[in-house]
């Protein structure tokens, strides 16, 4: 199965999107993105954690310590109201860019 690099700038969008359905910890976020993309998109840990910090700083997510299924303390991230708003904005933006790219590819 070929692995694809994330398109730059989409990591935050993807993280926001997977958190929409409920709080997850860092590892689970990476896992979920991988699963949902049939393992095509692979999240680099080296960019995931700085991205999460940035989202914390912006107030899009909140971090809480919980116990995982394996009874380990994990920090899970929960989407905030500001995060939801940001997700909508990024989605709209992404759609627009996507459409634009597609039309260029079609017509060129």
């Amino acid at each position: 199965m070929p692995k694809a690099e994330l398109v730059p700038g989409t990591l935050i969008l993807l993280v926001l999107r997977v958190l929409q359905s409920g709080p997850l910890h860092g590892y689970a976020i990476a896992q979920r993105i991988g699963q949902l993309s049939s393992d095509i998109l692979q999240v680099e840990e080296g960019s995931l954690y700085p991205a999460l910090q940035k989202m914390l700083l912006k107030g899009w997510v909140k971090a809480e310590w919980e116990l995982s299924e394996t009874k380990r303390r994990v920090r899970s991230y929960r989407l905030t109201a500001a995060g939801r708003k940001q997700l909508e904005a990024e989605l709209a933006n992404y759609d627009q860019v996507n459409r634009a790219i597609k039309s260029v590819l079609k017509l060129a």
Partner: protein
Amino acid sequence: MTELFRRLWYLLNRRRLEREMADEMQFHREQLPLARRADFGSSLRLIEDSRDIWGWTWLDRLTQDLTYGARVLRRSPAFTLTALLVLGLGIGVPLTAFRQVLYDLQANTAPDPATLVQLTRRAPGLHITVLSYPALEFYIANARSFREIVALSPPHQATFGTAAAEPVRILFATANYFPEFAIGPARGRILTPADERADSEPAAMIAESFWQRRLAGDPAILGQILTLNGKPVRVVGIVPRTARLTADVWMPLSRQPAVVEGSTLLTDWSGALDVYARLAPGVSPKAAEQETRALSLRLHDLRPRDVRHDEYLEARPVLQFDPNSSEFQIVLTAAVLVMILLVAACANLGILVLARGVAREREIRTRMALGAARSRVVRQLFTESLLLAALSAAAALALSSIVLKIIQLQRDSGIAPNLFPGWIVLAATAAVAVIAALVFGLPPALRLTSLTPRGGRARTIFLGAQVAASCLLLVVSTLLIASLQRLRTIDPGFDYQHLVWISPGLKAHGYNAAAAQSYMALLRTRAAALPAVKSSSAVWLAPWGDSHMGTGWSGRVFAGNHVDPDFVATAGLHLLRGRNFRPGDDAVTILTEASARQLFPGQDALGKIVPWDPHGPVVIGIVSNASTTAIGATDPLEYYLPASRADAPESFLLLRVAGNPRDGLRLLQDTARALDLRLQPVVHSLTDAYDRELEKISRALAVITLLGTVAVLLSAIGLAGLAGYTVAQRTHEIGLRMALGARAGQIVRAILAPMTRPVAVGFLCGAIGGTAAVKILRSGIAGISGLTGFDPLAYLAALVFFLTIVALAILAPARRAIRVDPAKALQHD
């Protein structure tokens, strides 16, 4: 805003948050299949990246740099102490000057100074700085341009107590003086309009210093009765100490007759009150003057003899930065000079930092080779400079506080400028420190991290600027000192050392012209009977006294006085041409030679009418130049008019005495008082006035000498430091040269060669700039234009002295250079 809050929260909880992040990543890593664990990357690196995101990296770096800088400074105490000395002085001297000026300004500030004006009588050819009480009342009642009119009497000499009466100074003021000049009571209350009513009990405020000195700070003094001039006065408040309040007691102006027996102040049209006014909202000084023109005309109709038809009151804002005023120019010049000192200090320190940096080149190169970015190293070096500047600024603050304390003790005024710097001072100091660090720290940091070898002109520029600034300061201070020294020996043109004047203060006690004249005649007879008194003369204004009469003509001010026929002989003037006054003379004048030359250039002044008044007096005599009105004028523009009967109540008696004039002061005072026990006569010797003036000059001399000394000291430190570093750095090379047979002279030349040009250029700039600066000073500042010109001898002396210092500073390290032992030097390294 919330983002900022989150950032701060992160900073405060940083340790915990970073630990948590590490835990979190550890968990993540454990979940990964073994093969992928290596992909995770370094947790430390990730934590650092996240720190970057929260934006606190700069703080870490700053802490790091500060720690490192502090260690570097601690490790080289000689450099650090020298730098502290240089920059501490460089910042401290301007800072002290700034704080002193700031303090003087604040001490003289009335609230809303823009609307506060001084009112003086003006008409063509007339400028009288005082108003009479009846005129004051008229303007208060009629002028619409002023919201308040404030009047102050000149300080009145009175006695305090009953048994052994002591002299005190009473200032009589309208009650609105206190609110308009923002003088609040330290205790009790201020004087109010109710205290001004003629049927009220006489009330007074006393000065805090008087209260503590004479009344032992008795807290129960409020409401008590003091005896002033033998009259009971109730104390209602205490005036706090400030610089400008010098009287002992304040009383309502309208109640002056209550303590001055026989006073005619309230009805006398020739009274002398200083008058200030608050402009009504929206009224300009010019508009106010227009109104007073019309009012003065009405006053002229009432009192044609006392008020001229073309008179008006000039309204001049009291706190106006008049760029033409000599005070402003002196302050400006002083500011420029101390700023040059700061420049010299910065350039100096720049050289030292650069020279030392060259010795640290290896360290810097190593760090850069290990991957430190240039900006990172520059930031580190600059932080070191900033630390140095901050320490120097702290030292400068301490220094300025000490100097201000000394000045305060010297002045003995008992008034303390705030020794703890206010926020303005702190902000200014911080700003200067940062600018200084930028000037002396940044160019060396850039130079040292630059990869182009031996490029850059930082050292040349620093060296040149430093030498030029120091040399300029030395030249300016030497020339000023030479001029001031000469001022000390200026001949006032008459023998002042045996002159004494008595001011009986007749007018305050209601003497009319006839009574005053007979009193003065009697006093002269009594005085003449004293063995020490040789001759006497009645004059209207005391020589070198506080009051002056002047007339402006073609841009110069001619100082005048009313004198009797005995004045020329008593004062010790020489009649050169024409004749002296005779009793009964009118409409005649005697001029000093300088006045005659100025008013009638190339003509014979005798028989001519003074040009400023077509109906004015005719010149009947010319006397030798003498500066009897002000001390220190080299070109005394004076004229004398015959004293009239009307002058008598305000007259002074000028006496020529044998022996030490100070010996007979008490006897003369008693003699004057014996004729009328109500009087509080004041007696002064001219020698005392002269000494006071000399003291002022000496103080100015001390300040300027200090400035010059600091400049030379800075220069010596900088040059010696640079030469020393150069020698230390090139020991190896020197050894090599010696081993190859170079002679001492050649070595010294080789080492000094790069310094020669900047030093020579700087020296020339300083030498020429110094003369230019003094020329500007002399042409620009009326106050010191009397200082006679350029003194070539002093100038040469300054230059030679400077060169000597430069040579000494450079040669000491050079001596060390030629003593280098080649064998050892070559082993080294």
